[in-house]
């Protein structure tokens, strides 16, 4: 699905990613954990194509294409989805209009006809159930006046609507109560198939009780420094990151 090799990226003069390697295969869920400032959100931004970051070295192969050569919207159209840590509000633009535009832009890039209003509305009904999103929110302006939990649910709703190959969830659990967490996790688990993959970026292992990862990676100082199974997350939860820093020092 995606193969990241020796990825270096900086913002301004500050290098944040310092030779990151990560391979994710179809059907897998990977969790990335790490202390504050390790570069977790930077990784998400760089993969999605945010212009503030400059990639100085390394390659990213996404389903056989050079991801770094694509513009942000092209990456999205190829099937890369980022669930934002802080979903932004777009006043006056209804969620539905926004998603229909997105779906049709993606279809157009594949030379497909626009989705019919009927099919689209059926899709909205089906997918909003999945994340228990109040159908009224679908017609409200994008994220405007949504609670923190509703915003995150809306991200997963959008993900369900767009059906990406690779979804990156950037701290989707932050600010969620336990019920919302379950709903979001349930959405992600239902969407899981052997054709797609998910990267879950999180601070806490709590989310991983609901979204069970195949691999857990520790990102520290711009690199993946340790990889393990689900038990690694539990150990981090219990012991923090100091023991990893010590291991590295030795």
């Amino acid at each position, binding site marked *: 699905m995606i193969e990241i090799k020796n990825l270096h990226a900086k913002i301004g003069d500050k290098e944040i990613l310092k030779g990151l390697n990560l391979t994710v295969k179809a059907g897998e869920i990977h969790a990335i954990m790490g202390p504050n400032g390790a570069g977790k959100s930077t990784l998400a931004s760089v993969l*999605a*194509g*945010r212009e503030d970051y400059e990639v100085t070295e390394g390659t990213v192969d996404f389903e056989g294409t050079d991801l770094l050569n694509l*513009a*942000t*919207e092209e*990456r*999205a*159209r190829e099937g890369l*989805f*980022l669930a*934002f840590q802080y*979903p*932004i509000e*777009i*006043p*006056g*633009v*209804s969620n539905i*209009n*926004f*998603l*229909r*535009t*997105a779906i*049709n*832009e*993606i279809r*157009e*890039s594949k030379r497909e006809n*626009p989705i019919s*209003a009927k099919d689209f509305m059926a899709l909205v009904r089906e997918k909003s159930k999945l994340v228990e999103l109040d159908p009224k929110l679908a017609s409200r*302006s994008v994220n405007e006046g949504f609670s923190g939990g509703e915003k995150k649910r809306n991200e997963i709703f*959008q993900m369900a609507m*767009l059906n990406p190959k690779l979804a990156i969830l950037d701290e989707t659990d932050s600010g969620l109560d336990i019920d919302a967490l379950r709903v979001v996790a349930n959405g992600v688990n239902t969407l899981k198939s052997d054709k797609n993959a998910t990267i879950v970026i999180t601070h806490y292992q709590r989310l991983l009780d609901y979204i069970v990862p195949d691999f857990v990676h520790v990102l520290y100082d711009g690199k993946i420094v340790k990889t393990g199974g689900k038990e690694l997350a539990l150990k981090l939860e219990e012991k923090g990151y100091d023991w990893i820093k010590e291991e590295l020092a030795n």
Partner: protein
Amino acid sequence: MANYTEDELAQDLENQEYKFGFTTDIDADQAPKGLNEDIIRFISAKKEEPNWMLENRLEAFEMWKKMTEPDWAHVKYKKPDFQDIIYYSAPKQTKKYESWDDVDPEMKETMKKLGISMEEQKRLTGTNVAVDFVMDSVSVATSFKAKLKELGIIFCSFSEAVQEYPELVREHMGTVVPTSDNFYAALNSAVFTDGSFCYIPKGVRCPMELSTYFRINEGGTGQFERTLVIADEGSYVSYLEGCTAPQRDENQLHAAVVELIAKDNAEIKYSTVQNWYPGDKNGLGGIFNFVTKRGICGLNSKISWTQVETGSAVTWKYPSCILKGDNSIGEFYSVAVTNNYQQADTGTKMIHLGKNTKSTIISKGISAGKSHNSYRGLVQIHKNATNSRNFSQCDSLLMTDECGAHTFPYIECKNSSSKIEHEATTSKIGEDQIFYCLQRGISEEKAIGLIVNGYCKEVLNQLPMEFAVEAQKLLTISLEGSVG
């Protein structure tokens, strides 16, 4: 509505340059350049006007000569040389148009390019817009006249109204915008050449949108049109105007006067989509749009102004309401977009004279390129206007680091039972918003279109459907590639 827009937007985006910049090669009957009494007599004679009208014009000219051009607006431009303008230019026609078939083929072609299809309208009686087309100094064609006449509605060119309904014109003209009102209003009163006239009789609800399409075609000319809309007691009318001009290096002057009269229990909805040529990327050429628009409300009546302003090099325009009758309502909904070197100083005046009068002002300014966009508004509550209310909201959106947004709200209140609210925001178009759209696969152009149209939604919702779709496209096209 949204469906229609989104689907069609893509095609229109390809056509991002000012698409009305063509000229029509048509013989014109022109006055010599310059302004003096003889020119005014010439115009009046051309129009075969009654003597009182000529007297009005000459009086206005005398006043104008003593006035100075206003310079309080937040705009900078080289003052027009009033002696270097052609004040009368009419497409040459051998005889009066008796029917649509008499209209010059070139002219028909022009209208077609502008999207005004009278032929189509003739066929489809189901359409609900009657159009008056004013090119340079004269009204060329008005559709649906007969149908309207059955209801007693008069919708015709201003010149025709002077001929056919002189008493109506004489009684109302200049009662809302007096000749002495301001420099441009005085100039207009002296040299106006045509425009639209509309009268809705008592208790009649006009069944279709009335629309005037203004077009400047000839070089070196100015357009000075006059519009008078009278809604008699208990009547209703929705009126639309659209404006375009060819692409030229020179600055052309457009100084119009619009007067609205809503008598007791009447309602007038007046919508404008102004897309005069804005000048090129370096600020060369474009229309100077200096317009006086004002309406007066009787008892329980309502006047609503909606404007989408994307064109003109310099705009100076304040559609206003005099809320004279008790319980009358004034509304102003505005979107003003400036790009490159455009300058706009626009807003409204709400004059509360009657009791329980209410006004609402929603202004959305969008500045891009190196442009300057100002909102200037006055809310004036007179001492007898008990329990009157005003709500104003002025939002500015900045697209680049080099543009400017300015707000000049004036509030004068002489009645302690009144309530005035003013809200204002200024924001820069969010890179985060654009990135969010891009990440969902939406192109940058479409993202800007979505965001800007969302930002203006409150105003666009006020426009009649056909215009709203047009306006949304226009906004997107005007801001093409403007994020910096």
